[in-house]
């Protein structure tokens, strides 16, 4: 067969511009099975092809940043859990570290390591949820149940540690509130020992599945250049071939103590983002395995007063949340309440790349692309 890049249909007497379909405008969301919450996407379609899109967000806006201005530093900490509610531990870590930076408090090593373990477990949990829902969007009905099975184990560890499964508020400014419970190490080890095999199981279902590959390869391509211009971070950026991870770039918590790789993709398509996240789960497991072997002893809370009054000034601190760079920009006016808390939500900024990714694709790809960005609307809208 002769290969020509573009194919035209030439039927005599037929002008496709005249015969073109009406442009259809379809609303996907806010109440749609696969917009992951209350995202509303307005699609302009030619037939089934997307010729333009607009994300309409804000349905879950709660004014978290405004709330922060009326809470003390400690009081605000639980609120951040409600942003990316599938990765509450990561949110909490970012906030606590930002305030610690503002207070210039040193966190004891034991707290740092426990924080690292919990945050990495949370990353696994978040990626598992992403994998399940993403696969469900593309029509694979089964992986989500396997993913929830493993995620359940992680949530059980969280529940045992701090009494909550979802919005954990696991950390305190300056370190940890609770000493780890008896058997924490065993629980984590048991989970990790089994988990590698479980990832293989998901991959057996998807990675080489012909339909899965066809549905994800070449879909939603984001070049490295575009990704950087759009400020995209996290696995989406790494899948585009940019090897950048805040855990390596600006090590926080105890990440500088552990060996791990940063997986990168090459094509920046949905399949690469899938592979990157799968590999990230393995790397998270690796970090946890190293960390759990050697938790330093010592205090768990640094020297912070009961009343926190950071010196006037400002700080920007960011961590590598499961979705990307989660930054907190906190301005202190020297009182017990932050003057301004700005949260840089990874989902919000990554979602901006949606239009670039979706143009020219079909309706069916829209859900694949929404899924691959891995947004949580609680964080997009705050």
């Amino acid at each position, binding site marked *: 067969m002769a290969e020509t890049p573009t194919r035209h249909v030439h039927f005599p007497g037929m002008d496709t511009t005249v015969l073109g379909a009406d442009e259809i405008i379809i609303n996907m969301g806010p109440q749609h099975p696969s917009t992951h919450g209350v995202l509303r996407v307005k699609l302009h379609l030619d037939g089934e092809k997307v010729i333009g899109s607009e994300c309409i967000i804000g349905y879950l806006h709660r004014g978290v940043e405004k709330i922060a*201005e009326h809470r003390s530093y400690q009081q605000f900490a639980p609120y951040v859990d409600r942003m990316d509610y599938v990765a509450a531990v990561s949110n909490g870590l970012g906030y606590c570290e930002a305030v610690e930076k503002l207070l210039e408090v040193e966190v004891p090593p034991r707290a740092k390591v426990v924080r690292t373990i919990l945050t990495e477990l949370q990353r696994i949990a978040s990626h598992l949820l992403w994998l399940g829902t993403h696969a469900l969007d593309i029509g694979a009905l089964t992986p989500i149940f396997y993913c929830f099975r493993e995620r359940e184990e992680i949530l059980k560890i969280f529940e045992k540690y701090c009494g909550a499964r979802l919005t954990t508020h696991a950390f305190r400014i300056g370190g940890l509130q609770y000493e780890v419970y008896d058997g924490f190490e065993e629980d984590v080890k048991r989970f990790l020992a089994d988990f590698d095999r479980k990832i293989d199981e998901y991959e057996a279902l998807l990675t080489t599945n012909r339909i899965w590959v066809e549905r994800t390869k070449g879909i939603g391509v984001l070049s490295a250049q575009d990704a950087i*211009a*759009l400020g995209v971070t996290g696995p989406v950026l790494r899948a585009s071939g940019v090897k950048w991870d805040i855990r390596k770039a600006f090590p926080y918590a105890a990440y500088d103590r552990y060996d791990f790789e940063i997986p990168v993709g090459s094509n920046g398509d949905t399949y690469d983002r899938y592979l990157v996240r799968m590999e990230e789960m393995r790397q998270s497991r690796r970090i946890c395995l190293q960390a759990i072997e050697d938790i330093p002893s010592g205090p768990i809370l640094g020297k912070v007063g009961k*009343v926190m*009054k950071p010196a*006037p000034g400002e*700080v920007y601190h960011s961590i590598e949340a499961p979705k990307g760079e989660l930054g907190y920009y906190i301005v202190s*006016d020297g009182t017990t309440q932050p003057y301004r808390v700005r949260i840089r939500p990874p989902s919000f900024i990554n979602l901006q790349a949606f239009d670039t990714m979706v143009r020219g694709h079909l309706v069916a790809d829209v859900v694949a692309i929404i899924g691959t960005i891995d947004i949580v609307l609680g964080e997009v*809208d705050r």
Partner: protein
Amino acid sequence: MADEPTSKQPEKRPETSEGQPPARETSAQKPAEKPAGEKPVPPKKEAPPAWPKPLDNEMVRRFRQRFGDAILDALEDRKQAILVVAAERLREIAEYARDEEQFDMLTDLTAVDWPKREKRFDLVVNLYSFPRNERLRLKAAVGEHDQPPSLAPVWAAANWLERECFDMFGIRFEGHPDLRRILLPDEWVGHPLRKDYDILQQDTAWVRENLGIESGQ
């Protein structure tokens, strides 16, 4: 609710001088559950390094050389570099930062409201450089009716961030391709992250108008 008292009077932030807001009077607005726990201020904070310090390094000198008076100040706050720049020349400086200084990613763009100042908003632009693995913060003072240049032509990421900034503070960016509210409904009145925004009144009005009931606040 213990924290009710604070949320009832949101806009009474005492602020005496510009630039450096001093510590607030301690007892006035404390939450109820911490009555007088303020006295023993932690001793370790007695003599903190006086942030922000002035910053002077190669990069700042290059900026100064290139833009002269437009670089109003260079500061270091908790080991973070801050350039205070003139808002009118923000886009030029941003373009220079991106092209010459390799700050290729716009990490974040936001604002802070200081209602007592002459120019009430601080526009805060956080930049990141992949090759240098460095962050840089640009700050520019913007008056209530000023129209700072939009950074959307420089970084595509600025599009939504500026829309959010407009939504929350009412800062109009000149040259923005599509400056509309992003998180709040289009017909919303006021800009919530301004310090003088009255939450309760807004809430009651909106609920009454749109839901036809009295707000429970």
